[in-house]
């Protein structure tokens, strides 16, 4: 028996610090729940949240600047561009950009959790999730002002999961990250203050289907591992590219094991991003979840899932690109078509945005399929285009769901589209802000949505998938109808009785304002951000 030499692993603390800070913040949040009296928990949680996000952003910025210098000087100094934590994570341009995006969006979206004005002094979450809806206990909990302040910690956990997901360098890390980002969201989905039955139903569906999809992912991962003998992207890639024929598994099962594995893995990833035909959960979960949570998962999960998928498919499965490209192309078309078509008939604003989120996944997939890596200096490759789209989409989504929180019939959010009639005239500020959001979703110029669409379609086109770009453009029109329908309701219909725009706290206003302004700026002067994204290069392996 050979004595196993245990070498202390090298941990690149500084490079990892953004993730660690977020995780630390989350743990601290858990500790606060245990040690602090109830009334102190909320302020502490919020401060912790902000500190974690700001700290992580600061460290990330420092790392990024250093890393850029390092690549310029072609020297390897810490923090570095490369594999971290014994090859489990990658630190590269795309992952840093994704971390930036996730941290910013996480900050904005989780800040909205803090609002206490829209619900007359209470948060958007159930006072006591364990109580039965409609029971006396629930009444009691409401009356004495109990609340779940651990939502912030849950949010930070999911954020950490997403950050790891986009940077994962092997299948197991990815799987764990997948669960770390999903499990808190399952819980968050379940604890809406109002319409709790719906919330619970959404959580149940999300959970069962999510676990189901995880199983697919895991089984796929196992098969790929079997084929290649490696969990890491580079190993898988070399097995595929090198035509690994010597492995036992390959001898036994041939390429079938790889194809099946890729299919199952793809199911898991496509499920998370809500691509058709794995979108079933999206409308239900988006509708039922507490609206701040919907906003967060719509942005965060989508960024994580798409970036993660690109990493897997580009780096690990790049060798069989010709095999999976057509498949993803079909999925992209289905996603655009079904997402848009099904959204048309919706009369619930949240559900409508949910379907719209599905269709956006389709638009993004066009660039993913294009796999346009090699572009001239200063231009966007496929990853940059997708990132830009996601950034634009993220801002609009956060603002959109936050505004949905404000429009109320009585004390509950008014989801019915008919209730939105005349909102734009009743409250022009909210009207204009939501209009900007809708126009960005619709991809109308002067908004980030347009530049994003532009970027992904150009990427798909130059990548050889011009027909996919054309389909995307065609369905952009149908999608535009969707948002215009809402605009018409908001601005031209006679105002609905009994619906008002509730007074919101800065916790809501700040993210809304920042997001809409960002949407406009990215639409008018996308130059700097694009410039930055164009320096990201591609995934390292």
């Amino acid at each position, binding site marked *: 028996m050979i004595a196993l030499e245990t070498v202390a692993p090298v941990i690149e603390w500084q490079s990892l610090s953004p993730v660690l800070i977020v995780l630390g913040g989350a743990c601290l949040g858990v500790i606060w729940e245990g040690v602090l009296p109830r009334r102190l928990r909320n302020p502490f949680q919020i401060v912790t949240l902000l500190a974690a996000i700001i700290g992580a952003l600061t460290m990330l910025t420092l790392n990024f600047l250093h890393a850029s210098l390092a690549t310029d000087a072609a020297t390897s100094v810490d923090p570095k561009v490369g594999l971290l934590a014994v090859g489990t994570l990658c630190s590269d341009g795309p992952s840093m950009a994704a971390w930036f995006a996730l941290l910013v969006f996480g900050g904005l979206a989780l800040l909205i959790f803090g609002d206490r004005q829209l619900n007359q002094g209470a948060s958007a979450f159930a006072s006591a999730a364990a109580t039965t809806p409609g029971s006396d206990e629930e009444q009691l909990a409401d009356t004495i002002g109990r609340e779940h302040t651990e939502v912030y910690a849950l949010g930070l956990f999911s954020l950490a999961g997403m950050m790891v997901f986009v940077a994962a360098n092997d299948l197991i890390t990815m799987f764990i990250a997948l669960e770390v980002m999903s499990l808190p969201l399952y819980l968050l989905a379940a604890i809406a203050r109002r319409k709790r039955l719906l919330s619970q139903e959404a959580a149940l569906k999300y959970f069962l289907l999510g676990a189901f999809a995880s199983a697919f992912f895991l089984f796929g991962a196992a098969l790929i591992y079997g084929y290649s003998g490696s969990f890491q992207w580079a190993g898988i890639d070399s097995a595929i590219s090198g035509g690994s024929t010597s492995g036992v598994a390959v001898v036994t099962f041939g390429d079938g094991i790889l194809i099946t594995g890729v299919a199952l893995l793809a199911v898991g990833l496509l499920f998370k991003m809500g691509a058709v035909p794995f979108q079933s959960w999206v409308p239900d979960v988006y509708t039922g979840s507490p609206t701040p949570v919907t906003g967060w998962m719509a942005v965060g999960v989508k960024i994580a899932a798409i970036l993660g998928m690109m990493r897997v498919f580009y780096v690990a499965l790049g060798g069989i690109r010709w095999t999976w490209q057509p498949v993803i192309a079909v999925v992209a078309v289905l996603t655009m078509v079904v997402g848009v078509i099904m959204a048309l008939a919706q009369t619930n604003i949240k559900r409508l945005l949910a379907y719209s989120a599905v269709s956006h996944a389709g638009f993004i997939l066009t660039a993913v399929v294009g796999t346009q890596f090699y572009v*001239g200096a200063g231009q966007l490759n496929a990853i940059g285009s997708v990132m830009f789209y996601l950034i634009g989409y993220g801002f609009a989504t956060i603002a959109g769901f936050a505004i949905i929180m404000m429009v109320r019939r009585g004390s509950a959010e008014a989801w019915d589209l008919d209730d939105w009639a005349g909102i734009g*005239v009743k409250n022009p500020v909210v009207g204009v802000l939501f209009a900007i959001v809708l126009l960005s979703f619709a991809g109308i*110029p002067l908004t980030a949505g347009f530049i994003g669409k532009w970027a992904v379609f150009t990427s798909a086109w130059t990548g050889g998938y011009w027909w996919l770009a054309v389909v995307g453009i065609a369905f952009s*029109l149908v999608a*535009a109808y969707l948002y215009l329908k809402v605009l018409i309701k908001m*601005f031209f219909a006679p105002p609905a009785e009994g619906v008002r725009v509730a007074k919101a706290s800065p916790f809501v206003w700040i993210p809304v304002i920042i997001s809409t302004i960002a949407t406009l700026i990215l639409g008018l002067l996308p130059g700097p951000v694009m410039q930055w994204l164009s320096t990201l290069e591609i995934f390292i392996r």
Partner: protein
Amino acid sequence: MTFPLLTCLGLLPIIGAAILILPVRAAGKWIGLGFALATLGLAAAAVPVYLGDPTALTQTVPWIPAFGAYWALSVDGMGLTMVLLTALLTPLVLFAEWNITGKGTKWTSQAFAALVLLLEGLSLLVFMADDILLFYICFEATLIPMYFLIGGFGGERRSQAALKFLLFGLAGGLIMLVSVVGIGSFSQQAIGAPTYLISQIGVSLSGGSTWAWVLMLCFLAAFILKAPMVPVHTWLPTAAEEATPGSSVLMVGILDKIGTFGMIRICLTLFPVESAAIAPVMIVLALVSIIYGALAAIGSKNLLRLVAYTSVSHFGFMVLGIYTFTSVGLGGTMFYQVNHGFSTAALFLVLGFLIKRRGSANVADYGGVQSQAPILSGALLLAGLSGLALPGMSTFVSEFEVLAGSWSRYPWAAIVAALGTVLAAVYILLMYQRTMTGPATPEVEETITTDLTLKEKLVAFGLAAVVIILGLIPNLALSVITPTAQETLTQIGVADHQAPLGEEVPA
């Protein structure tokens, strides 16, 4: 660094619109008018500069380097005249719709002014853009303020009309997006780096591949939708019927011109080979529009709808002029764009004054207005005469040029189009006869009790004066338009026709 006149020209109204977001209340319309007049002043200031050196105004600043897109503005004769048209019509519309409010909603005149200014700024940028991406962005963005203008201030079925307007506009825009995305991709192949500068791309994409065809056709489809040609014109009558006359003026007078403008600026300039090849098809389409629009106008029972149909017919003329590939026809179209702007504005606004009094746009609700409001009827007749291109009006000069240009290559087309001029007489005079002449009906006597006010007179006769002055001294505009038309043809390498007649367009 010279003074960025064109940038200021484009941004000034947009800044005005932004200022109008502030709650300025009653001052809103004054601020709006002020900005519109200031823009007019800037536009006027651009004229001597342009006359001095046509390239002095050109500006090219990197904008989105990642795409190779520039903030590139420049004007040629056509652009300059369109800029002036826009700058003139905007304050006029604000002035004419001074006290406008949305029907049954809280839309205020301040919102109207803001939207009109936004529309003006974006349209100006479209007319000045030398970069296809910038052109496209502004082209699409113009839809939004127009959409709100229709939906906010229109009639009963305004929201459907607004939606239809926007959907057709977006359809065109998105079809064009295919081309614009393609341009980026192909200019990379042709030139080495992706570029959207019209002046840089030149004719480098034309000929060669099937792709040039696809790109040209997508652009063309968008412009056909924009300058509504049969059978994709249906949004225009609906929108015009529902919108307020002021909005319709901007929509038909300025926005739709982007269609014909784009055909010249992009289809013709970038894809001369393909454009020449498709010319017969376009000419047939133009003729169909001319005749169909005129017939539908004759049959129309709604005054505003009628004017919209006449515009469909007029746009047919403009398209015809473009695809004659003669400097006369092309110059005629460029001039036509301007004249049609003024002439349609006059028609819409005067009809607006009429409809405001009577409260109905149905032709059947009128009769004998002339005896109640002789000046109004005189103004309507004057506007109508400019619509039917009476000699002495500027519309005549342009229509004549278009027909003469088309005659020299396609006499048959000119004959068919000339029938359109007869039909024009029918639709205008029939409308006038039905509404203005005969004994006044009791309803008309009851509702139309006042003639034009001083403000309305200023608007109506001011526009008529412009049309007549340009008709008597067309060289005011032609002196800049004609060289541009000739230059365009030279650039794309088409010689003007020489006798004998009916010579084919050189491919």
